[in-house]
């Protein structure tokens, strides 16, 4: 018999993640959206823990919930959201956009129902303690070149952000 707690926590965390995802795209106030997004990211980090990925969960909390969301909140403070709150929240093509998104959802349902066999139920046995070590071995071994390219990407992003946000270069 499968343990019950796993099932309970999966549904609980998915509910937290999806409900706060809904809040992100429906709130008027951008600060409320950002806070809901933080809750969603934390719920997702807990889902990563359930999938035996503690390192990715840690990176998610530190980088996403800690770093990127602080960036978002700072920018929300810099731009004037009071005016945006009183205006229309949805653009003119919102009906078409919603239809396109729901069509995409129907496609997902079709793929998951028809292609059920593509996603086997088996799970490989993962050691719980050595995850960080194994990730590091792969990251600095097989994916060394990709890792270097990622650092280059971050450098370009830093320079780009400074150039964009600076008044006069």
């Amino acid at each position, binding site marked *: 018999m*499968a343990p019950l707690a796993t099932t309970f926590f999966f549904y609980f965390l*998915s509910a937290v993640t*999806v409900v706060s*995802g809904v809040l*992100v*795209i429906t*709130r008027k106030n*951008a600060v409320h*959206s*950002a806070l809901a*997004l933080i809750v*969603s*990211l934390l719920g997702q980090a807990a*889902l*990563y823990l359930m*999938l*035996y*990925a503690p*390192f990715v969960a840690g990176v998610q909390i530190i*980088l996403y919930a800690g770093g*990127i969301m602080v*960036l*978002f909140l700072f920018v929300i403070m*810099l*731009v*004037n*959201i009071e*005016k*945006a709150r009183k*205006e229309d*929240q*949805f*653009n*003119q093509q*919102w009906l078409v*956009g*919603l239809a396109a*998104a729901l069509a*995409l*959802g129907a496609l*997902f349902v079709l793929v*998951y129902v028809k292609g*059920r066999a593509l*996603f086997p*139920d088996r*799970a*490989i046995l*993962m050691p719980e303690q050595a995850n960080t070590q194994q*990730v590091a071995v792969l*990251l600095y071994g097989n994916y060394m070149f*990709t890792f270097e390219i*990622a650092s280059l*990407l*971050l450098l*370009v*992003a*830093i320079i780009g*952000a400074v150039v*964009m*946000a600076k008044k006069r270069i």
Partner: protein
Amino acid sequence: MAPISTIHYLVVAAALFILGVIGVLTRRNVVIVLMSIELILNAVNLNLVAFSRIWGLHGQIFAIFVITDAAAEAAVGLGILIAFFRNKETVNIDEVDLMKW
């Protein structure tokens, strides 16, 4: 209740992805559009980590790279937003039409 398998996680990720797409296509506030893009990237991450449960750790490595990419994208996107707000005093995405005509 059925035990939790990979397809459960895929369904959650698909729901998050759809929410992100709806946010990108319908909202006017640029900040919330950028947050919806973060939701989409997170859905992809959840898929990758769920697949790493079947096919080995490579999915988790890719998830880390996607997070790096999301950080870079957020920095550049918010930089563009600040530059745009300085010029036009608005954060509405349908008023960003300088290069349209």
